[in-house]
């Protein structure tokens, strides 16, 4: 006999289905905006066996919506704090809270996923969603997906073999900016922000990894290399910063103009005034002014103010207690110094190229890929996810194969800000698509990949095509029954170009089979040779085409009826998968 606290839930489900729900083992991936709402809903409706995984720690900017967290929890693990909080909502619940990365942690193998009855995603990035999609397909477990961005959201169910999987429809790729755009021809504020981040790396981080780094022995190295290197060892930060900024924004610009770099350019740069920069570097930075107004970060700094801010950051990072971190600094939008540096440097870069400079507030949004977020959208979406879970439970058995139509499996529901369509819907359920025959993830279709087989090395193929674009973690590549590569043997093949690989090489129309046992993934790839010169370097700096259709050269657009799947809101706050942040463990 269930407890009175389950009255409301049981009334709708009936005793038998409620019992199924109560004993259902559910995995929640993510304990952030959607996760907090989801966990609360699950324990209240009667899910008593939960596992929650999250790699992140709590930040003050989470507190406007991740309501299981308080100010005192800042710095602690989201999964752990959320797990504790929901026990107060329902003391019957058993929660396993794991602070870890769902992609890289060796704990989360396919067999581990098999231990659950359902998986519910509460993620904020494409990479993790892709990975969980593949694991759930491999483990054959239902996955309930959701995403939110601002006022909009989407919820849908993925069932292997019955519905489209997460990768059946192409998702927008992360934008990659060509090096020349960043180093020479920026046209948008974001290019200047990226430049500023690379400058930060050059001055305080791993310098040789920066896009702005030049080999000192090279003949056409930039003129600012020495001045920048000098910042790291200076005893007079203001002076060194002034000199570096003058080299970057004045001398180098003049040099490039003289070389004719901008002869045919749309935006011709204008060098900034060196005296303004060097004097500015010694003036008072806006961030240090006492009793500054609440909206001080919305003002757009002048060039001298920017120089002052950069000098102030240098002072901070060169101070005795920070000195040891020189060489390993990485940009972090939540680190005040990094952010002020990037805002100031981006502002100067914008001025050189006649682009409207950004305030610190705006720069932070761009630099940190900040996605605006509120409690209500997450609440709606998490409520709909539980609705989908209950529908799974009510179909006699969660793992039942007895379905007669996709409508029974679930729906794809859009959350709108305004009533939409003739039915004036704020919540719009539409029929789920079936698995797409061209999907190389759930339908094992062959993917055509076009690249230059004479110029591309196996190393690049593995790193850029297999790992970065196709999401493999530890791939093994075979051509017929010839092993061309796997991480334990054949590493010697990596420096070879594809055409020069053994067993006849990898050339136009070669069929490769790529396997990854860690994630139970196998894909067939058909290589097509496309010379590097045929690629548009600006649009496709990596010079690889991954073609979704089998016959066409270009990526086939998704059919009009499901065009909206392309609009799937990613809420992708992170440019790349973040490393698990170390959590505070003090009480």
């Amino acid at each position, binding site marked *: 006999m269930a*407890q*009175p*606290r*389950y*009255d*409301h*839930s049981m*009334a*709708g489900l009936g005793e038998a289905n409620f019992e199924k729900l109560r004993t259902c083992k559910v995995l929640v991936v993510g304990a952030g905006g959607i996760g907090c*709402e989801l966990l*609360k*809903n699950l324990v*209240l*409706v009667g899910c008593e066996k939960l596992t929650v995984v999250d790699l992140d720690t709590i930040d*003050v*900017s989470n*507190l*406007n*919506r991740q*309501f299981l967290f*308080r100010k005192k929890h800042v710095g602690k693990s989201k999964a752990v704090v959320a797990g504790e909080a929901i026990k*107060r*909502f*329902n*003391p019957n619940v058993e929660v396993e809270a794991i602070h870890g990365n769902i992609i890289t942690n060796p704990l989360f193998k396919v067999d581990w996923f098999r231990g659950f009855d359902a998986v519910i995603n509460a993620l904020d990035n494409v990479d993790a969603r892709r990975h969980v999609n593949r694991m759930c397909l491999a483990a054959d477990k239902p996955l309930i997906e959701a995403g939110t961005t*601002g*006022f909009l959201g989407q919820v849908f169910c993925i069932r292997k073999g019955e519905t489209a999987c997460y990768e059946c429809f192409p998702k927008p790729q992360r934008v990659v900016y060509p090096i020349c755009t960043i180093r020479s021809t920026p046209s948008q504020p974001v290019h200047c922000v990226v430049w500023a981040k690379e400058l930060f790396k050059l001055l305080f981080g791993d310098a040789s990894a920066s896009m702005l780094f030049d080999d000192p022995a090279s003949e056409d190295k930039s003129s600012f290399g020495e001045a920048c290197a000098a910042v790291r060892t200076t005893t007079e930060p203001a002076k060194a910063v002034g000199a570096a900024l003058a080299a970057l924004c004045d001398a180098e610009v003049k040099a490039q103009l003289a070389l004719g770099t901008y002869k045919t350019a749309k935006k011709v740069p204008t060098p900034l005034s060196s005296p303004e920069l060097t004097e500015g570097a010694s003036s008072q930075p806006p961030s240090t002014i006492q009793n500054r107004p*609440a*909206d001080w970060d919305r003002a757009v700094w002048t060039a001298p103010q920017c120089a002052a801010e950069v000098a102030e950051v240098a002072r901070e990072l060169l101070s005795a207690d920070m000195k040891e971190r020189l060489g390993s600094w990485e940009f972090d939008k939540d680190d005040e110094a990094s952010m002020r540096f990037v805002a100031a440097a981006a502002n100067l870069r914008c001025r050189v190229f006649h682009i409207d400079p950004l305030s610190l507030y705006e720069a932070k949004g761009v630099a940190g890929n*900040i*996605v*605006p*977020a*509120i*409690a*209500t*959208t*997450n*609440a*709606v*979406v*998490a*409520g*709909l996810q*539980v*609705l989908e879970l*209950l529908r799974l439970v009510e179909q006699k058995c969660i793992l039942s194969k007895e379905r007669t139509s996709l409508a029974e499996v679930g*729906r794809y*529901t859009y959350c709108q*800000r*305004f*009533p939409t369509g*003739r*039915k*004036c*819907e*704020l*919540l*719009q*359920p539409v029929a789920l698509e079936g698995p797409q025959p061209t999907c190389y993830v759930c339908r094992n279709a062959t993917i055509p990949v076009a690249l230059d087989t004479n110029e591309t090395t196996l190393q690049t193929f593995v790193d850029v095509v297999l790992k970065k674009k196709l999401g493999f973690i530890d791939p093994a590549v075979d051509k017929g029954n010839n092993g061309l590569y796997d991480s334990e043997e054949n590493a010697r093949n990596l420096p070879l170009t594809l055409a020069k690989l053994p067993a006849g090489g990898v050339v136009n129309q070669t069929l490769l089979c790529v396997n990854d046992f860690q994630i139970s993934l196998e894909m067939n790839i058909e290589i097509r040779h496309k010379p590097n010169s045929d690629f548009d370097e600006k649009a496709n700096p990596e010079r690889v085409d991954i073609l979704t259709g089998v016959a066409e050269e270009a990526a086939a657009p998704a059919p009009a009826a499901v065009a909206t799947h392309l609009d799937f809101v990613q809420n992708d706050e992170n440019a790349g998968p973040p490393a698990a942040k170390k959590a505070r463990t003090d009480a």
Partner: protein
Amino acid sequence: MATFTASEEETNKVYDRQIRLWGADAQRRIQASRVLFLGLGPANVELCKNLVLAGFSATIADHRRVDAASLGYNFFADAESIGKSAAEASIGNVAELNPFADVKIGSTSSCTDAATAEKLVEGHGVVIVDVPCVKGSENERKLINEACRKSGAKFLAVRCSGDGAAAFLDLGAEHSFVVETGEGAKKTTSAPQKASYCSYADAVGVDWTIVKNKKMAQPPTPFLLDRLDALFADRPSSKKRSRDDDDFVVFAKRELEARSLGLDDAMLARHARVAGKCPAHIAAVVGGVLGQEVVKAVSGRGAPTNNVFAFDAATGAGTALFASPAKRA
């Protein structure tokens, strides 16, 4: 519950992600606004969470005693608070959600005359009614609504069940708002526009059959069920009581037939079982949608829904409807 004065810089850090969405001006209006939660039903628990997190101040008015069943939706209370008033049991945890918001208990939580209604509403920019459907609740909604129209407060009335929910909005005879189009640098804001809302009494007085959108054979099920519940609660008691008088299904079929509408028996029977039994996830969906309506209303940005929202848990559809004697805009 006292709050400390925080600098705007401090609050900006917490509210950053939402300010980036609706802007600093909207945020200031939110922080200057107080919501009266009349009845801490399942929807109002969620609305309370959503709106206090956003920065609204709150008055929680509910003197009903917490029982074990309400712990299934009221996550502000716990087993130790069984027997206390819902407001008292919840206020501590509500206040903790946001130290910058002022949260207090309302001294009254019901009214049967205009004067009490006016006193209840006084000092609030938004009033949300979420109480169970019993004899007299429709009348109470009308009284509160009239008081809101008099004082200029925005009015919402909502009720959830195990099948979904229906909510009525009345933002006043002349609600002003702007419409934003485009994104980022290309964002444009329209000139102020006006929406006219009819009173709650007028809204529930319309012929049900017209409360539907194109592509609908009849009004959405949750709307009909909500209206049937209201009529059923206020059904006249006859001296000669027969079993049928208290049978919701019989009652409902009669009312629907009289209007040439229909809902199948199984659905009506199910509703009789689950009316008043709202599970947490349905409350979450409704509280989220309505929470956004409140933000639109108070910030004056974005066209608010005029004037009914109906959520059908069976299909997952959330529909905006127009229930008003006036012509559709």
